[in-house]
């Protein structure tokens, strides 16, 4: 058998490997033996780097010389909620500089939570002749000038997706930089932009791109222009409206309805800012085709939402505000048997009293009525252990469960007990659970359950929970597949962290803020673990200026083979292996 394997020519192995698309599988292949490592690295086209500081650009380039697609993630997830101070990092510039030289045939760049400048966008536009895909997810640092450079130079661009990015939106003229000869657009997402784009330029652009499948407009595009736009792209599959209101004019309504119906492939709708309910029936004729509906910006009331979702029998994904209320979720449970993903966002997260009747009941309903439900994000103001146990029993196929009870440390509203048993049931019954976010009143007991049952758990978010280090210890010692752990405002300190130091090298990252980890422990961890970067973020000035026992404000630990990073701002300190003091 061994002799047979050795006599396989490289080309054959390479051909076999080309069927392996998943990065994880590729990583495993490369570990089999040295020759497989070599063959595999020469034919790896797609690289995913979950933490841009875990490895250096030169290391990636050296190992994988033929990359066509690169994905990079920068800031930790809690940056979405303003917990990571401005200027922390995630600068993509050194990456772009390096890959511009090393990969002239690069086709795809996907970035998440990174800082990218106009200069970098211009470099991308100039350097890659076959550039096809640019996805900037929750990124910042650039303006519409950078976008103009991309539009003007990337002749083969297929996808430009700016989802949730913060763009210095100077004006809408950048769109006009796509030359008249440019026809290859497949996907355009500009929903995050503030200013108006030239609608005539947009109409001409999409009119000459026959392969356009996804078009997500920004709020500034008026409702009465949608029909014209849609008429030019009847092959559209995913569409995001702008502001969904206008003076009530029958011809606007009928043209819009006609245009939407004319898009026979349309499966996904989003946008819906400023909804005027009278215009919602324009969508009714296509509801039964829809698989994805994002109404999370639509401030429409429960009755209108019920009328809408009751017609969406093929719906797989629904994002909606809590205006849907329990009644709307009951309707969803009856009408949408194919539902896989539900996200319910809070309409007024800071209201002291509930403004809508959305309780645990709605989620229980959906868990009962929708057998394929596997991904949940739910903001509410009350929960009970009984409800959570019911949900868990109903949906053992749950893979992502994020519950946010708005008021921290809220107990079971029926028994006034902690919600340990409820979340315990979730991890126990949902054996394939990969992602979990906790909330409500929770003791160390819930972490015991998570450590015992959460064997497939990859990402865990914890806030205002636990009693002692034991809680953290249960997680780190029990969750075999944990990759990302983010914790805020929990009484976890040094002991659990130091006792489980080795575990941290098996994870992508750990974030802890407003906890009880001392500066001394951070230093110790930094010294002990050379392949971890232990970063202390503290606004109060250098940690040396305070006693070692003083807890740090924020802590970000991640594994890396690139050593400490060199682009830290002056409120971040890396705990060095050899020296105690940062050389400023």
């Amino acid at each position, binding site marked *: 058998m061994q002799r047979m394997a050795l006599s396989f020519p490289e080309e054959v192995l390479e051909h076999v490997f080309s069927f392996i698309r998943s990065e994880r599988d590729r990583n495993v292949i490369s570990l089999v033996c040295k020759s497989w490592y070599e063959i595999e690295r020469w034919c790896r086209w797609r690289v995913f780097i979950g933490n841009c500081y875990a490895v250096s650009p030169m290391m990636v380039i050296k190992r994988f010389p033929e990359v066509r697609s690169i994905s990079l993630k920068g800031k930790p997830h*809690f940056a*979405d*909620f*303003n*917990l990571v*101070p*401005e*200027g922390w990092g995630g600068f993509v510039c050194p990456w772009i500089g390096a890959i511009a030289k090393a990969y002239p045939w690069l086709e795809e760049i996907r970035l998440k939570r990174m800082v990218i400048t106009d200069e970098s966008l211009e470099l991308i536009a100039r350097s890659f002749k076959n550039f096809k895909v640019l996805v900037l997810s929750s990124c910042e640092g650039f303006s519409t000038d950078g976008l103009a450079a991309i539009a003007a130079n990337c002749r083969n661009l297929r996808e430009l997706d700016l989802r*949730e990015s*913060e763009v210095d939106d100077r004006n809408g003229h950048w769109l006009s930089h796509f030359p008249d000869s440019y026809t290859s657009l497949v996907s355009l997402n500009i929903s*995050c932009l503030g200013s108006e784009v030239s609608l005539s330029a947009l109409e001409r652009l999409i009119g000459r791109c026959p392969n356009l499948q996804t078009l997500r407009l920004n*709020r500034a595009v008026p409702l009465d222009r949608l029909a014209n736009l849609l008429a030019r792209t009847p092959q559209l599959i995913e569409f995001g409206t702008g502001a969904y209101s206008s003076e009530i004019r029958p011809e606007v309504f009928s043209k819009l309805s006609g245009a939407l119906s004319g898009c026979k492939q349309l499966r996904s709708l989003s946008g819906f*800012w400023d909804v005027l309910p009278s215009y919602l029936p324009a969508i009714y004729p296509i509801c039964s085709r829809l698989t994805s509906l994002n109404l*999370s*910006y639509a*401030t429409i009331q429960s009755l209108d939402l019920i009328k809408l979702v009751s017609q969406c029998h093929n719906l797989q994904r629904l994002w909606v*505000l809590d205006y849907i209320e329990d009644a709307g979720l009951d309707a969803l449970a009856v009408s949408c048997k194919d539902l896989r993903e539900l996200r319910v*966002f*809070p*309409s*007024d*997260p*800071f209201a*002291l*009293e509930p403004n809508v009747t959305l309780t645990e009941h709605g989620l229980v309903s959906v868990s009962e009525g929708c057998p394929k439900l596997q991904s949940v994000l739910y*903001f509410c103001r009350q929960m009970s252990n009984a409800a959570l146990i019911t949900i868990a029993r109903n949906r053992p196929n749950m893979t992502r469960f994020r519950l*946010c009870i*708005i008021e*921290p440390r809220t107990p079971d509203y029926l028994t006034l007990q902690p919600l340990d048993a409820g979340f315990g049931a979730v991890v126990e019954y949902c054996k394939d659970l990969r992602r979990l976010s906790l909330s409500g009143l929770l003791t160390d007991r819930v972490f015991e359950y998570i450590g015992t049952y959460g064997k497939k758990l990859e990402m865990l978010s914890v*806030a205002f929970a636990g009693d002692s280090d034991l809680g953290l210890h249960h997680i780190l010692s029990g969750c075999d597949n944990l990759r990302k752990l983010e914790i*805020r*405002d929990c009484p976890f300190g040094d002991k659990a962290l130091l006792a489980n130091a080795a575990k941290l090298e098996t994870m992508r990252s750990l974030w802890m803020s407003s906890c009880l980890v001392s500066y001394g422990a951070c230093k110790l961890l930094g010294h002990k673990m050379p392949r971890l970067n232990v970063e202390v973020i503290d*606004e109060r*000035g250098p940690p040396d200026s305070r006693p070692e026992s003083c807890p740090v404000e924020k802590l970000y630990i991640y594994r890396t083979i690139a050593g400490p990073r060199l682009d830290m*701002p*002056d*409120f971040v300190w890396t705990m060095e292996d050899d020296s105690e003091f940062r050389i400023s």
Partner: protein
Amino acid sequence: MSPESTGTARSAMSDVTELNLKETELTLGLPGTNNITTSSKRAFSETTVFTPTSSSTSNPAPKAQAVGWPPVRASRKNAMRGCKYVKVAVDGAPYLRKVDLEKYESYDQLLTGLEAMFGSLTIRNHLGNGAEYMPTYEDKDGDWMLVGDVPWKMFVESCKRIRLLKSEASGLEIRRTELKLKEKTCGN
């Protein structure tokens, strides 16, 4: 400088100091109300919605929130309830924060909110003394203005970012101008 005018200047300065000592609470007034006495301060507070001492649930002002809780992205918040997040920089503080101007109904509320956000700062407008901060903002035209110069709604509409300047730089100028004014009025 003649002894009389120095004495006058000193007493004018001590008037300013005394006013400041009394006003340990924020007392930002609209233009023209610089010489706020405690009675008119109360009147001013009563005209605003926010009353710091009230803790009833009917108080429409939001209570102090933990940063980043509940975990709703800024872009989502911005789309609802006419949110308006602007960055706030403070001289001497290493990092920026963001504040939602739509959460407040008056300058009073905003500056109290900023004071809470940045720890134990005290913020003054027009009257300045010691290690206090002058609130300034950049408007739509890119000009830097003093916070409080325009009606509140206009400010929310035009404010792009806020900077709290340490008063040593700016307060000194203001005090000098004030002193000159008092000299003119009291010296004669």
